[in-house]
């Protein structure tokens, strides 16, 4: 740990990479929240895979070799794929998953084909394109990080500006339309920013894992809050922390490539959130379930007792515990708990209902 911090302080390249992955993580988390809430998780996957042929074509046809030029190619082909997907969904009877699947595999397949072709070219300059498959954070330059930061800044501004429109379209697009808002414009804006976030991540995380980078921080954040603003903020934080930690881990351990480690850490956030979140976590739900089940058992015992005594003149008259023997629901422990809650009185081998116990049971009975 200390070694890593020393390294971070002294190594300029590492600083750049750390900053880059943090900004990328924050950007992905923020925009990923919108992708998650639109229930279009697969859209991100389709678009990121579909950006591959753009990179290859720009390289092959235009001979461009610098990163920004290649990413521009990725952006174009990502946008084209988004238009294709929307078109297929609106013009045919196909379901949206089918449309996404078709576009994803066609574009990605074509991109791989071009990539293989490029690798066989005699021209030596072709190396380096494979990095867009799984990402190579080490190739991040200061200028890349500035571009990323600028885009993150613009995205944040747009999100703040159109906050209420985004929120309303995500929740209820039809209603938004009746208020006179241009839903298609808002929708296109959201999609465009998601595409841009994906393209920004290609160099670091790569085509294959990019959608996980987009969705994981948002999915994790959703578990901790019921407010959209807090969710977007938390997702940004989770993304940034994943970036920083991922870079740290891969810098400390040799030969671990950064992109996959970042995604792995983001996924860890998801797992932890799904289990431990107090609002929606599985653990908490399970505990609540156990508690409810126990309460239910207690109430059943109480009801059984009530039925035994309800016709007596004195409802608090003691009865033998043996009387309960043909009732499955009771144990010594549950009787003790009923006594602790003042619902019954125990006296050696006898039990009796208290006033409170009688009324609680009576209420239960009438509400059943």
């Amino acid at each position, binding site marked *: 740990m200390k070694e890593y911090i020393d390294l971070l302080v002294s190594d300029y390249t590492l600083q750049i990479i750390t900053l880059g992955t943090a900004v990328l993580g924050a950007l992905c988390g923020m925009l990923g929240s919108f992708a998650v809430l639109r229930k279009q998780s697969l859209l991100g996957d389709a678009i990121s895979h579909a950006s591959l042929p753009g990179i290859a074509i720009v390289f092959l046809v235009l001979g461009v070799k610098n990163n920004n030029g290649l990413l521009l190619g990725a952006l174009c082909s990502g946008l084209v794929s988004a238009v294709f997907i929307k078109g297929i969904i609106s013009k045919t009877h196909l379901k949206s998953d089918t449309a996404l699947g078709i576009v994803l595999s066609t574009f990605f397949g074509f991109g791989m084909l071009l990539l293989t072709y490029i690798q066989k070219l005699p021209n030596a300059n072709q190396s380096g394109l494979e990095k867009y498959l799984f990402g190579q954070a080490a190739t991040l330059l200061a200028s890349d990080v500035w571009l990323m930061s600028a885009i993150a800044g613009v995205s944040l501004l747009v999100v703040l500006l159109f906050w209420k*429109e985004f929120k309303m379209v995500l929740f209820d697009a039809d209603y938004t*339309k009746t208020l*006179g808002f241009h839903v298609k414009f808002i929708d296109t804006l959201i999609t465009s920013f998601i595409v841009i976030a994906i393209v920004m991540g290609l160099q670091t995380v790569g085509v294959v894992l990019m959608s996980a980078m987009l969705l994981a921080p948002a999915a994790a954040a959703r578990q901790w809050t019921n407010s*959209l603003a807090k969710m977007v903020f938390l997702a940004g934080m989770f993304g940034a922390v994943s970036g920083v930690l991922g870079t740290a881990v891969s810098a400390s351990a040799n030969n671990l490539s950064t992109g996959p480690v970042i995604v792995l850490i983001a996924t860890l956030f998801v797992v932890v959130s799904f289990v431990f979140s107090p609002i929606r976590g599985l653990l908490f739900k399970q505990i609540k379930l156990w508690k409810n089940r126990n309460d239910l058992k207690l109430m059943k015992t109480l009801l059984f007792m009530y039925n035994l005594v309800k016709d007596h003149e004195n409802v608090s008259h003691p009865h033998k515990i043996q009387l309960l023997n043909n009732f499955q629901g009771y144990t010594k422990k549950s009787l003790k708990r009923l006594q602790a809650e003042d619902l019954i009185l125990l006296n050696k081998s006898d039990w009796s209902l208290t006033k409170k116990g009688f009324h609680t049971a009576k209420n239960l009975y009438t509400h059943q």
Partner: protein
Amino acid sequence: MEAKIAIAIDDLTVAYNYKPVLWDIDLQIPEGVLMAIVGPNGAGKSTLLKSILDIIKPLAGSVTVYGKPYKKQRDLVAYVPQKGSVDWDFPTTALDVVMMGTYGALGWIKRPGSAQKKQALEALEKVGMLSFQNRQISQLSGGQQQRIFLARALVQNAAIYFMDEPFQGVDATTEKAIIQILKELRKAGKTVIVVHHDLQTVPEYFDWVTFLNVKKIATGPVADIFNDDNLTKTYGINYKASIAEGTL
């Protein structure tokens, strides 16, 4: 006295994937009625509302609101969608959803402020949901969710209200509360159009009715046209048995 026409629908035809769902609908809705739209499942009731509101593009036909195209009259119209059409697990609160009713008047980019919040709180109070304002919407019962949707439309203070099955999946208390509000709207001179499922309550709740099954079967005062003849034309010969079985 002839009432003014609030909504006039002319030759409206709508299709999904070339399958006609509404065929050549002509319909005039007088101002100030509380109207039920009834018809079997898949009759196109929701589609009719959506095409009036320009959510779906019709193949043909036109809709006017007080004599002008709907697009110029949006401010006069409020919509309560079917409850099942949104994801109630969306991270937001009851108050937040009702606030959306103010967004139309607010326009692009501007943020809602204390005036908008006040309107929303008033609407929440009207539907008896004031104490639930900060609840996450997934923590509300079906009836409460429906009240929230109604409150969101009330905030718009429109002249015409379209509601898609506002009584679906609500408890008896909510049903009474909602019908009370609808009757108050009518008393205030508003026009209220409700897609309705429960034929038995039509005469009690509504004064106007439209029978729909792809085509318009009939429209008019409940007292005049809510009869066996029109019910049979809309639901088929065995409609009474179907009502008894609850399959309508």
